């Protein structure tokens, strides 16, 4: 980047190279934004298009490509494992998103008041966010080891004996939801705290004078005014549940999709098809469909919120 190219002239005058102030600003602006614009184009934009393109090919183990049109999409249609991973993904998201919303908002309300004790509590609820999902998965695996893991030892105390929280195909996904909530709730707690901060205290005072109890003011003040935050939380947690890197890491290390594919969400199945079986074309086709689904959800959310704007009434 040449400094002299970006020199801004005394107002109105032309520079040595005959550029007007306006042109100068324009060129400088482009140069400043170039590295990031180019980087996002190459490492996010191009892969998205590439995914769509590769989805029409069959890729063999030696990197040979053969055009198969909609072949990969037809294969998906008749692949029971694809459908089962769609089902697992939906089940996971349906459990996780409301649980995260409730946990995040609940914790935020619990530690909302600014004081020393609450500051410590906030940090404690947020602490799991500091640790990698690999470590999280390993620690929980250890605690959930059948019979002798600390959680398995404590389970009978709450009336759950003789169960295997990770080994039972009927329970494994549910267990992963619990671990995911444990890990992610601190993040959403902070987002909700940010939202709660923006609600003017006068509203609550006025409600109190009118004789409203805490439940009433939660229902008629907090919830309606939290609408923007709620939409943000629901959208982000939904995308995170369906396609998030953290969810991938957790499931990949903890169960690898097992037992008997009961925790094999779509992103895990795509990864296995690509990097275990070398089916890059098939994996790309599935990923493209997933991107399409996520785009539809995002558009739907934005339509619902009238372009991300909210009117307070």
């Amino acid at each position, binding site marked *: 980047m040449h400094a002299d190219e970006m020199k801004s002239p005394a107002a109105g005058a032309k520079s040595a190279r005959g550029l007007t102030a306006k042109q100068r600003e324009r060129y400088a602006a*482009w140069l*400043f934004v170039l590295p990031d614009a180019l980087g996002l184009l190459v490492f996010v934009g191009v892969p998205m298009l590439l995914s769509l393109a590769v989805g029409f090919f069959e890729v063999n183990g030696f990197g040979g490509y053969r055009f198969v049109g909609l072949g990969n999409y037809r294969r998906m249609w008749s692949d029971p494992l694809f459908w089962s991973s769609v089902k697992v993904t939906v089940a996971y998201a349906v459990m996780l998103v409301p649980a995260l919303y409730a946990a995040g908002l609940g914790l935020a309300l619990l530690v909302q008041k600014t004081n020393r004790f*609450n500051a410590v509590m906030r940090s404690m609820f947020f602490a799991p966010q500091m640790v990698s999902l690999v470590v*999280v998965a390993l620690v929980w695996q250890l605690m959930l080891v059948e019979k002798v893991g600390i959680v398995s030892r404590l389970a009978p105390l709450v009336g759950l004996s003789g169960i295997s929280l990770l080994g039972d195909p009927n329970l494994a996904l549910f267990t992963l939801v619990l671990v995911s909530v444990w890990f992610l709730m601190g993040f959403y707690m902070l987002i909700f705290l940010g939202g709660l901060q923006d609600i003017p205290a006068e509203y609550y005072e006025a409600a109190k004078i009118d004789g409203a109890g805490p439940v009433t003011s939660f229902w008629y003040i907090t919830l309606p005014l939290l609408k923007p935050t709620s939409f943000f939380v629901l959208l982000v947690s939904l995308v995170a549940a369906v396609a998030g890197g953290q969810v991938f890491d957790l499931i990949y290390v903890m169960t690898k999709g097992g037992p008997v594919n009961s925790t094999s969400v779509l992103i895990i199945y795509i990864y296995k098809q690509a990097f275990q079986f070398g089916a890059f074309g098939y994996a790309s086709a599935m990923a493209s469909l997933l991107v399409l689904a996520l785009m539809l959800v995002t558009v739907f959310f934005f339509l619902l919120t009238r372009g991300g704007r909210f009117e307070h009434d």
Partner: protein
Amino acid sequence: MLATAALGLMTVFPLVWMLVISLKPASDVFTPSLIPEQPTLGNFLYVLTEVPFLRYLFNSFFVSATVTVAALFFHSMAGYSLARLRFPGRDILFLAMFSTFLVSLPVIIVPLFILTRTLHMLDSYAGLIIPAIFNAFGIFLLRQYYLSLPRELEEAAIMDGASYWRIYWSIILPLSRPILSALAILFFLANWNAFLWPLTITSDLNLWVVQVAIANFKSQYAAAWNYVMAASTIVAVPMLVLFVIFQRQIMESIKTSGLK
């Protein structure tokens, strides 16, 4: 208050348990005692000497630090341009960049791998570092921050004929120190904890980052939980210490990142 405290303790319990097990000998891994009866540092010693763990730590540190510095540099430049300079197509460009915000790694992992292979960046530091630099979140936050700075600050400099580069370097950057330090922690943390990308593009053991190493460690040492937990502790503790020191900045910057 008591209930809150109990919830808080339950939340940090798994992290405490990791530490506890890392201090227990192999024979005591499944005893329920919270305080190791025969505490030992042997597990740490084993991990640090019998496994090239220092190498993995170095790789993680090098990659995370490089990504963080490059990302802060590029994002602050882009944020400055998108917030303060006028050029045709600015809003569309910002929208296009921002819309990548919801694209997560798992959905583009296959094409990104193909692209990286085509660029001959598999099994290289470049491959670990370069694709990790670009993310819309940082650009968005910095742009927001620059929009809030008063314009007078640069106007005097423009009158004096300072170049835009000079304004960025000696006025804008120093003013962004608080947000840059908060972002630095978040970026470093995210890259230190990253697993999927390094897992996918490195097969050369010399390039393994710690996360990939401990995930493999587990399968290699099947039930040697004391070693696995010692390794996990080594990986997690620096981040927990970082958190204890900078908790206010970390939590503030996340709190304000919700769209309002």
